[in-house]
């Protein structure tokens, strides 16, 4: 073994960032990423799986709510209402009862979430032009489910009676009250439409945070950090080299989710796809930077994953993904403003559903970029070049 005598080292710079060293790190990370086949497969499968789970399972417009009908009179009107309720997929008639005592028992046991009571003399009062009361008892422990169902209920009954039994209300052209619902951007009121952009951000946040959260601690735990630190590579080069391969993965994930959203859930992309790609790229890098920051703060992989989870939770709860942002208390909104997902969801919903241009969304885009830079600065400052 001999040492080559010629001097071939590129003494290009002593400080600063070298593209060559950054690229060395990127290639290395990329090879390591592809070598771990199970993880790679998981990376691709997670978005698909979660999109389908969330997209189909989470639906704030509930269906097939267990319902009971308390029939105090056996009339055509009663049967008509019963049939109408059964015909909608909101309600599923579990049982028809005749005694009031059974009603409490059904609600308490949870066998019925709704009990519709058709009182005695309802049809007669109706035909006389009086305004008889139709009692609906609802289990309101899940307000989301009950309120939307309650909203639908009076409409269903009115239509049922008007169509099926030709019962004319006293003033058919002037109902006692009328609620006009104008659902913009989501005319069908489909929650999937709203959830898919949210899910895009949530899935990206979760998977990307973990990828980079493990990157530095993995080197430390495998003992390769000592060798890496003894080489002339700077913290910035290590960080960028470790982030870059996962940007590709993040964009592939985003592509899969958006494609599935279009094909399976019929989510439109009203805005420009380039805007969507740009903001998604920024969001991917921001999350990878934050994950990388955790990696420089944690001493082992378990700690890093826990930190990522601690960060992930408020992202889900306070970003406007699960609950309407405007409805949150002020302090929660402030926290929400500091989370990348909040800004991403706003921008993506605007681009996909409203057709907004990225220029209109300058505030959210700039904030996202700001959060990314803050994370990167912390990571580079926190990265220890010695083993002290």
């Amino acid at each position, binding site marked *: 073994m001999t040492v080559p005598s010629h001097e071939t080292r*590129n003494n290009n710079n002593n400080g600063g960032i070298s593209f060559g060293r950054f690229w*060395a790190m990127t*290639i290395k990370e990329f090879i390591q990423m592809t*070598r771990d086949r199970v993880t790679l497969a998981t990376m691709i499968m997670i978005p698909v799986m979660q999109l389908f789970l969330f997209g189909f399972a989470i639906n704030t417009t509930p269906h097939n709510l267990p319902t009971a009908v308390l029939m105090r009179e056996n009339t055509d009107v009663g049967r008509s209402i019963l049939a109408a309720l059964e015909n909608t997929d909101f309600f599923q008639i579990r049982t028809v009862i005749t005694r009031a005592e059974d009603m409490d028992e059904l609600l308490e046991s949870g066998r019925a979430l709704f009990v519709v009571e058709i009182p005695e003399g309802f049809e007669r009062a109706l035909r006389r032009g009086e305004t008889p009361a139709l009692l609906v008892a609802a289990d309101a422990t899940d307000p989301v489910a009950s309120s939307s169902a309650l909203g639908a209920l009076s409409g269903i009954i009115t239509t049922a009676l008007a169509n099926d039994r030709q019962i004319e209300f006293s003033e058919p052209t002037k109902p006692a009250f009328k609620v006009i619902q104008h659902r913009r951007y989501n005319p069908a009121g489909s929650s999937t439409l709203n959830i898919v952009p949210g899910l895009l951000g949530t899935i990206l946040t979760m998977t990307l945070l973990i990828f980079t959260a493990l990157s530095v601690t993995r080197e430390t735990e495998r003992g390769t950090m*000592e060798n890496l630190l*003894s*080489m002339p590579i700077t913290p910035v080069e290590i960080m960028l080299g470790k982030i870059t391969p996962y940007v590709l993965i993040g964009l592939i994930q985003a592509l899969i989710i958006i494609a599935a959203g279009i094909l399976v859930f019929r989510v439109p992309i009203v805005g420009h796809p380039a805007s969507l790609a740009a903001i998604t790229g920024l969001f991917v890098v921001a999350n990878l930077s934050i994950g990388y920051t955790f990696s420089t703060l944690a001493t082992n992989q378990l700690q890093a994953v826990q930190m990522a989870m601690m960060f992930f939770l408020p992202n889900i709860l306070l970003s406007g993904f699960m609950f309407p942002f405007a409805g949150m208390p002020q302090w929660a909104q402030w926290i929400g403003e500091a989370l990348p997902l909040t800004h991403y969801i706003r921008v993506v919903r605007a681009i996909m559903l409203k057709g907004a241009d990225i220029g209109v969304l300058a505030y959210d885009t700039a904030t996202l970029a700001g959060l990314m830079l803050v994370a990167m600065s912390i990571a580079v400052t926190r990265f220890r070049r010695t*083993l002290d």
Partner: protein
Amino acid sequence: MTDPIMTVEAPETVIDVHHLTKSFGGRKVVDDVSMSVRKGRIHGFLGPNGSGKTTTIRMLCGLLTPDSGDGTCLGFDILTESDRIRRRVGYMTQKFSLYQDLSIRENLEFVARVYGLSDPRGKASAAIERLGLKGREKQLAGELSGGWKQRLALGACILPEPALLLLDEPTAGVDPQARRDFWNEIHALATEGLSVLVSTHYMDEAERCHEIAYIAYGKLLAEGTVDEVIAATGLSTWTVSGPEVHRLQQELEKLPGIDMIAPFGTNLHVAGHDEAALERAIAPYRDRAGLKWEKDAPTLEDAFIDLMRRSQDNFS
């Protein structure tokens, strides 16, 4: 601090450090260690486990910051110019620290790229050939045997053509043939002007170094050539052979004037610092039937065990 020589070419003294001290959790791991290594020399670094060898080496290449002390490595200040040192020093860690999930070629190419070498692929190919790993270059580093891992690690170390090699127990867990090959390579590299600081436990390896330094409990106890280190202990040694030398050991152990007894096969090494006292102590046994006494030169191992024992006394 001695006057730093700010040139890329290695100066005559490649390592020149003074009063290095490092503590971890209140315990002094390295205590006032000064050391100098000349260009083109193989400097052996010896001492028991946990004596501070690794910590000292890490301070030399900028991986640890000394609590106090200063000095230069290749003419660069170890406190302020560790970036420059990193470029010119090849550090081989005690534990294999290349990427186990990368192939031999990928590891070497990574090193070549990080050091900014031109034609990383060509450099890696040349290194693979030198290492005798041709045809196995696609094998993952983690699948290699201990001896091959060590060869690969050395190959990666010398790839960027460093001026100084810091090798931390490179031959631990490697078979004798691989150890011999490894040392032949080290000597070949030194002949070409490379300086080497190598830590080891093995006496035969210590004897292959130009100079050695012995460290125990964080303190540098001896430094110099093998002969100088042995002479510095001031030991006189007798070798006694014959039947029942083990029983003799028990009898001799308590005698004043005898500082150290160690069995070597069927022989017994009896040593003391005061030659006259040692001879007085063994005089009654000299004529015992069946025993053969011979005045002997102390070995390096005698010297080290003596150094270690004396330092233990100081610390207990």
